[in-house]
């Protein structure tokens, strides 16, 4: 069975500082992993996805994530937060359906 755990429900960072949103997955086989972002009143937008190619995946808006099989993790990072990054972030593992984490709300303090 597939599942993801997002370790933080809320993360708050200052503008210009690094962002780390943590995700651990459980999968009975080699997983496909995604990060989606949801801005207020918008749809879920794909940030990046991992599908067993390079373990470091680069996405849009300067985000990247590293797949670590030994740690069953797929943490999302960004070197420098921007005000526009404030949103809800979802980690997803794909199996016979998409399995979502509970989401992490990112606040960026000016």
């Amino acid at each position: 069975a597939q599942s993801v755990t997002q370790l933080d429900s809320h993360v708050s960072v200052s503008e210009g500082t690094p962002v780390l949103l943590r995700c651990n997955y459980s999968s009975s086989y080699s997983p496909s992993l995604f990060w989606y972002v949801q801005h207020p009143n918008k749809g879920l937008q794909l940030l990046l996805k991992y599908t067993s190619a390079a373990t470091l995946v680069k996405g849009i808006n300067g985000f990247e994530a590293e797949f670590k099989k030994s740690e069953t993790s797929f943490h999302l990072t960004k070197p420098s937060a921007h005000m526009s990054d404030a949103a809800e972030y979802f980690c997803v593992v794909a199996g016979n359906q998409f399995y979502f984490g509970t989401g992490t709300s990112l606040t960026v303090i000016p």
Partner: protein
Amino acid sequence: EPEVTQTPSHQVTQMGQEVILRCVPISNHLYFYWYRQILGQKVEFLVSFYNNEISEKSEIFDDQFSVERPDGSNFTLKIRSTKLEDSAMYFCASSVKSWSSYETQYFGPGTRLLVL
């Protein structure tokens, strides 16, 4: 850039009433999905749809739910007799090719349903 759209953005209904949530998937996509998110809980898969048939459904998707592609553009979710516990955000999604774990799904903004 093409987007999945959903209407209405908000829907308030009385318990026992029927509601229809509408979605317009991206035009060249062939696979369609509905998910829901009860407030404070995870986004949950409801159903997938391809070639005018349900491909897969979750245990949540019981007989009160149905899906339909009534024309070439719309994809609808009908809840026949709403219950209080159906209050949630409902997301529609679509994907280009075969439903596989590698295929990206594109999501709409959601319809927030409130059942009173």
